Protein backbone atom coordinates (compact mmCIF):
# COMPACT_ATOMS: atom_id res chain seq x y z
CA UNK A 1 0.00 0.00 0.00
CA UNK A 2 1.31 3.45 -0.89
CA UNK A 3 1.83 5.62 2.18
CA UNK A 4 -0.12 8.86 2.01
CA UNK A 5 0.11 11.80 4.38
CA UNK A 6 -2.69 14.30 4.33
CA UNK A 7 -2.65 17.55 6.27
CA UNK A 8 -5.86 17.90 8.32
CA UNK A 9 -5.16 20.86 10.61
CA UNK A 10 -2.52 23.54 10.69
CA UNK A 11 -1.80 26.58 12.82
CA UNK A 12 1.09 28.99 12.58
CA UNK A 13 1.08 32.23 14.53
CA UNK A 14 0.59 33.59 18.06
CA UNK A 15 -1.41 31.08 20.10
CA UNK A 16 -4.27 32.30 22.29
CA UNK A 17 -6.42 30.18 24.59
CA UNK A 18 -9.38 30.73 22.27
CA UNK A 19 -7.30 29.57 19.32
CA UNK A 20 -6.56 26.31 21.17
CA UNK A 21 -10.33 25.89 21.63
CA UNK A 22 -10.89 26.54 17.92
CA UNK A 23 -8.31 23.90 16.94
CA UNK A 24 -9.83 21.35 19.33
CA UNK A 25 -13.32 21.95 17.94
CA UNK A 26 -12.05 21.63 14.36
CA UNK A 27 -10.32 18.35 15.20
CA UNK A 28 -13.48 16.93 16.83
CA UNK A 29 -15.45 17.93 13.73
CA UNK A 30 -12.99 16.29 11.34
CA UNK A 31 -12.67 13.11 13.43
CA UNK A 32 -16.38 12.73 13.95
CA UNK A 33 -16.45 9.36 12.16
CA UNK A 34 -13.68 7.88 14.30
CA UNK A 35 -13.94 6.13 17.63
CA UNK A 36 -14.30 8.13 20.84
CA UNK A 37 -11.09 6.51 22.07
CA UNK A 38 -9.03 7.88 19.17
CA UNK A 39 -10.65 11.32 19.46
CA UNK A 40 -9.88 11.39 23.19
CA UNK A 41 -6.23 10.49 22.62
CA UNK A 42 -5.79 13.16 19.95
CA UNK A 43 -7.71 15.69 22.08
CA UNK A 44 -5.54 14.95 25.13
CA UNK A 45 -2.31 15.33 23.19
CA UNK A 46 -3.51 18.58 21.63
CA UNK A 47 -4.60 20.09 24.97
CA UNK A 48 -1.43 19.16 26.82
CA UNK A 49 0.95 20.16 24.04
CA UNK A 50 -0.80 23.40 23.04
CA UNK A 51 -1.33 24.50 26.65
CA UNK A 52 2.35 23.73 27.20
CA UNK A 53 3.19 26.16 24.38
CA UNK A 54 0.71 28.74 25.72
CA UNK A 55 2.10 28.62 29.28
CA UNK A 56 5.79 27.92 28.79
CA UNK A 57 6.99 29.32 25.46
CA UNK A 58 9.69 31.98 25.57
CA UNK A 59 8.66 34.52 22.97
CA UNK A 60 11.63 35.81 21.00
CA UNK A 61 11.49 39.63 21.07
CA UNK A 62 11.07 41.43 17.76
CA UNK A 63 10.87 38.23 15.75
CA UNK A 64 8.08 37.19 13.41
CA UNK A 65 9.86 34.16 11.99
CA UNK A 66 9.26 31.56 14.69
CA UNK A 67 5.69 31.61 15.94
CA UNK A 68 4.06 28.56 17.53
CA UNK A 69 3.28 25.89 14.94
CA UNK A 70 0.88 22.96 15.13
CA UNK A 71 0.16 20.47 12.38
CA UNK A 72 -1.97 17.32 12.32
CA UNK A 73 -1.74 14.85 9.47
CA UNK A 74 -3.39 11.53 8.74
CA UNK A 75 -1.42 8.75 7.11
CA UNK A 76 -2.84 5.34 6.25
CA UNK A 77 -3.29 4.11 9.79
CA UNK A 78 -1.76 6.85 11.94
CA UNK A 79 -2.49 10.34 13.24
CA UNK A 80 0.70 12.41 13.20
CA UNK A 81 1.06 15.64 15.16
CA UNK A 82 3.87 18.13 15.48
CA UNK A 83 4.01 21.11 17.86
CA UNK A 84 6.74 23.75 17.87
CA UNK A 85 7.57 26.87 19.87
CA UNK A 86 10.52 29.03 20.81
CA UNK A 87 12.34 28.37 24.08
CA UNK A 88 15.41 29.78 25.78
CA UNK A 89 18.39 27.55 25.08
CA UNK A 90 19.16 27.53 28.80
CA UNK A 91 16.00 25.38 29.26
CA UNK A 92 16.69 22.85 26.49
CA UNK A 93 18.79 20.43 28.57
CA UNK A 94 16.12 20.22 31.28
CA UNK A 95 13.27 19.74 28.77
CA UNK A 96 15.28 17.10 26.93
CA UNK A 97 16.01 15.26 30.18
CA UNK A 98 12.28 15.22 31.10
CA UNK A 99 11.28 13.91 27.67
CA UNK A 100 14.05 11.30 27.61
CA UNK A 101 12.90 10.13 31.05
CA UNK A 102 9.26 9.61 30.02
CA UNK A 103 10.42 8.08 26.73
CA UNK A 104 12.15 5.26 28.58
CA UNK A 105 9.09 4.25 30.58
CA UNK A 106 6.54 1.61 29.67
CA UNK A 107 2.80 1.96 30.20
CA UNK A 108 2.76 0.87 33.85
CA UNK A 109 5.84 2.95 34.69
CA UNK A 110 4.20 6.03 33.14
CA UNK A 111 1.15 5.36 35.29
CA UNK A 112 3.38 5.18 38.39
CA UNK A 113 5.12 8.44 37.47
CA UNK A 114 1.74 10.11 36.91
CA UNK A 115 0.59 8.89 40.31
CA UNK A 116 3.77 10.12 42.00
CA UNK A 117 3.52 13.61 40.46
CA UNK A 118 -0.20 14.08 41.10
CA UNK A 119 0.10 12.96 44.74
CA UNK A 120 3.25 14.86 45.61
CA UNK A 121 3.54 17.70 43.06
CA UNK A 122 2.26 21.24 43.26
CA UNK A 123 0.72 23.60 40.74
CA UNK A 124 3.30 26.02 39.32
CA UNK A 125 2.83 29.79 39.09
CA UNK A 126 2.03 29.30 35.40
CA UNK A 127 -0.76 26.85 36.25
CA UNK A 128 1.01 23.65 35.22
CA UNK A 129 0.98 20.45 37.26
CA UNK A 130 4.17 18.94 35.79
CA UNK A 131 2.05 16.22 34.21
CA UNK A 132 1.90 17.49 30.62
CA UNK A 133 4.76 15.44 29.14
CA UNK A 134 3.61 12.36 31.08
CA UNK A 135 0.07 12.68 29.73
CA UNK A 136 1.39 13.21 26.19
CA UNK A 137 3.57 10.11 26.51
CA UNK A 138 0.68 8.07 27.87
CA UNK A 139 -1.52 8.68 24.83
CA UNK A 140 1.44 7.97 22.54
CA UNK A 141 2.43 4.79 24.39
CA UNK A 142 5.70 6.50 25.33
CA UNK A 143 6.71 7.34 21.80
CA UNK A 144 7.36 11.10 21.78
CA UNK A 145 9.94 12.55 19.42
CA UNK A 146 11.57 15.90 20.11
CA UNK A 147 14.16 18.23 18.64
CA UNK A 148 15.72 21.64 19.24
CA UNK A 149 16.74 23.83 16.31
CA UNK A 150 19.05 26.71 17.34
CA UNK A 151 17.62 29.87 15.74
CA UNK A 152 19.29 32.73 17.63
CA UNK A 153 22.12 33.12 20.16
CA UNK A 154 19.77 32.40 23.11
CA UNK A 155 16.77 30.69 21.49
CA UNK A 156 15.86 27.35 19.96
CA UNK A 157 12.77 26.19 18.11
CA UNK A 158 11.49 23.23 20.16
CA UNK A 159 9.39 20.56 18.45
CA UNK A 160 7.49 17.57 19.85
CA UNK A 161 6.25 14.90 17.43
CA UNK A 162 3.83 12.09 18.08
CA UNK A 163 2.30 9.27 16.07
CA UNK A 164 -0.91 7.67 17.31
CA UNK A 165 -1.92 4.50 15.51
CA UNK A 166 -5.61 4.02 14.91
CA UNK A 167 -5.45 0.40 13.81
CA UNK A 168 -7.41 -0.36 16.96
CA UNK A 169 -9.39 2.90 16.72
CA UNK A 170 -10.76 2.48 13.16
CA UNK A 171 -13.58 4.59 11.72
CA UNK A 172 -16.99 3.48 12.76
CA UNK A 173 -19.04 1.92 9.97
Amino acid at each position, binding site marked *: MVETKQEILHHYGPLSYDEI*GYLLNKMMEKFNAYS*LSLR*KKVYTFM*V*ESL*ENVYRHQDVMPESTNYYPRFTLWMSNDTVLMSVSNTVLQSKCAHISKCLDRVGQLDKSELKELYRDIILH*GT*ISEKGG*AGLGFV*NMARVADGKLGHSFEPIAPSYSYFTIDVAISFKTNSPMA
Partner: protein
Amino acid sequence: MEILKIQPDEFTPGILFDPEKSVFEIYGVSRPENVVGFYKPLLTWLDTYNQEVLQAEPEVHRQLEVNLKMTYFNSASSKFLLDMLLLFIRMDAGNCKVRVNWYYEEDDDEIKESGEELSEMLGFPFNYISVG
Protein backbone atom coordinates in the same frame (compact mmCIF):
# COMPACT_ATOMS: atom_id res chain seq x y z
CA MET B 1 -24.88 28.08 53.36
CA GLU B 2 -26.08 29.35 49.98
CA ILE B 3 -26.42 27.06 46.96
CA LEU B 4 -23.23 27.01 44.89
CA LYS B 5 -23.92 27.17 41.17
CA ILE B 6 -21.37 27.72 38.41
CA GLN B 7 -22.46 27.52 34.79
CA PRO B 8 -20.20 25.48 32.49
CA ASP B 9 -18.50 26.97 29.47
CA GLU B 10 -16.07 25.78 26.81
CA PHE B 11 -13.17 25.66 29.28
CA THR B 12 -14.63 25.19 32.75
CA PRO B 13 -16.98 22.63 34.31
CA GLY B 14 -20.39 23.30 35.73
CA ILE B 15 -20.83 22.99 39.48
CA LEU B 16 -23.98 22.58 41.50
CA PHE B 17 -24.05 22.08 45.24
CA ASP B 18 -27.14 22.45 47.35
CA PRO B 19 -25.97 21.97 50.95
CA GLU B 20 -29.55 21.32 52.10
CA LYS B 21 -29.96 18.38 49.70
CA SER B 22 -26.39 17.17 50.33
CA VAL B 23 -25.65 16.60 46.64
CA PHE B 24 -22.50 17.95 44.98
CA GLU B 25 -22.17 17.78 41.21
CA ILE B 26 -19.35 18.72 38.83
CA TYR B 27 -19.80 18.16 35.10
CA GLY B 28 -18.40 18.89 31.64
CA VAL B 29 -14.95 19.90 30.43
CA SER B 30 -12.18 21.17 32.69
CA ARG B 31 -9.22 22.97 31.17
CA PRO B 32 -9.47 26.45 32.68
CA GLU B 33 -7.05 29.09 31.49
CA ASN B 34 -6.54 30.01 35.15
CA VAL B 35 -6.83 26.65 36.88
CA VAL B 36 -5.81 28.00 40.29
CA GLY B 37 -8.30 30.86 40.01
CA PHE B 38 -11.10 28.42 39.22
CA TYR B 39 -10.45 25.63 41.75
CA LYS B 40 -8.99 27.44 44.77
CA PRO B 41 -12.26 29.23 45.67
CA LEU B 42 -14.13 25.94 45.21
CA LEU B 43 -11.78 24.15 47.62
CA THR B 44 -12.16 27.00 50.12
CA TRP B 45 -15.96 26.80 49.78
CA LEU B 46 -15.94 23.03 50.42
CA ASP B 47 -13.64 23.45 53.40
CA THR B 48 -15.98 26.08 54.84
CA TYR B 49 -18.93 23.71 54.22
CA ASN B 50 -17.10 20.99 56.13
CA GLN B 51 -16.32 23.24 59.09
CA GLU B 52 -19.46 25.38 59.26
CA VAL B 53 -22.15 22.91 58.22
CA LEU B 54 -21.00 19.31 58.66
CA GLN B 55 -19.02 19.74 61.84
CA ALA B 56 -21.48 22.23 63.32
CA GLU B 57 -24.53 20.02 62.70
CA PRO B 58 -23.22 16.44 62.45
CA GLU B 59 -26.57 14.93 63.38
CA VAL B 60 -28.35 16.73 60.50
CA HIS B 61 -25.96 16.05 57.62
CA ARG B 62 -25.24 12.36 57.73
CA GLN B 63 -24.66 11.66 54.05
CA LEU B 64 -23.34 13.39 50.96
CA GLU B 65 -23.67 12.36 47.34
CA VAL B 66 -20.77 13.43 45.08
CA ASN B 67 -21.49 13.15 41.35
CA LEU B 68 -18.55 13.55 38.97
CA LYS B 69 -19.76 13.79 35.38
CA MET B 70 -16.59 14.90 33.61
CA THR B 71 -16.20 14.49 29.87
CA TYR B 72 -12.59 15.73 29.84
CA PHE B 73 -10.11 17.24 32.30
CA ASN B 74 -6.55 18.34 31.65
CA SER B 75 -3.57 17.41 33.79
CA ALA B 76 -3.66 20.56 35.95
CA SER B 77 -7.38 19.98 36.64
CA SER B 78 -6.69 16.38 37.69
CA LYS B 79 -4.50 17.66 40.51
CA PHE B 80 -7.34 19.84 41.79
CA LEU B 81 -9.93 17.09 41.37
CA LEU B 82 -7.72 14.95 43.57
CA ASP B 83 -7.50 17.72 46.18
CA MET B 84 -11.27 18.13 46.05
CA LEU B 85 -11.84 14.40 46.53
CA LEU B 86 -9.41 14.42 49.47
CA LEU B 87 -11.69 16.97 51.11
CA PHE B 88 -14.72 14.73 50.58
CA ILE B 89 -12.79 11.78 52.05
CA ARG B 90 -12.02 13.94 55.08
CA MET B 91 -15.76 14.58 55.41
CA ASP B 92 -16.37 10.83 55.16
CA ALA B 93 -13.89 10.26 57.98
CA GLY B 94 -16.19 12.37 60.15
CA ASN B 95 -19.87 11.66 60.68
CA CYS B 96 -20.94 12.26 57.09
CA LYS B 97 -21.07 9.20 54.85
CA VAL B 98 -19.82 10.21 51.38
CA ARG B 99 -20.65 8.32 48.20
CA VAL B 100 -18.63 9.19 45.07
CA ASN B 101 -20.44 8.46 41.79
CA TRP B 102 -18.19 8.52 38.72
CA TYR B 103 -20.25 8.90 35.53
CA TYR B 104 -18.84 8.06 32.11
CA GLU B 105 -20.16 7.66 28.58
CA GLU B 106 -20.64 4.01 27.68
CA ASP B 107 -17.66 3.82 25.27
CA ASP B 108 -15.44 6.39 27.01
CA ASP B 109 -12.75 4.10 28.40
CA GLU B 110 -10.40 7.04 29.06
CA ILE B 111 -12.74 8.75 31.51
CA LYS B 112 -13.62 5.48 33.21
CA GLU B 113 -9.92 4.62 33.62
CA SER B 114 -9.21 8.12 34.96
CA GLY B 115 -11.82 7.52 37.64
CA GLU B 116 -10.35 4.12 38.48
CA GLU B 117 -6.88 5.66 38.79
CA LEU B 118 -8.09 8.43 41.10
CA SER B 119 -10.01 5.93 43.22
CA GLU B 120 -6.94 3.69 43.48
CA MET B 121 -4.69 6.63 44.41
CA LEU B 122 -7.09 7.75 47.11
CA GLY B 123 -7.83 4.27 48.39
CA PHE B 124 -11.51 5.20 48.29
CA PRO B 125 -14.12 3.23 46.30
CA PHE B 126 -16.13 4.98 43.58
CA ASN B 127 -19.50 3.92 42.25
CA TYR B 128 -19.19 3.75 38.41
CA ILE B 129 -22.22 4.69 36.36
CA SER B 130 -22.29 4.23 32.58
CA VAL B 131 -24.55 6.62 30.65
CA GLY B 132 -25.74 6.87 27.04
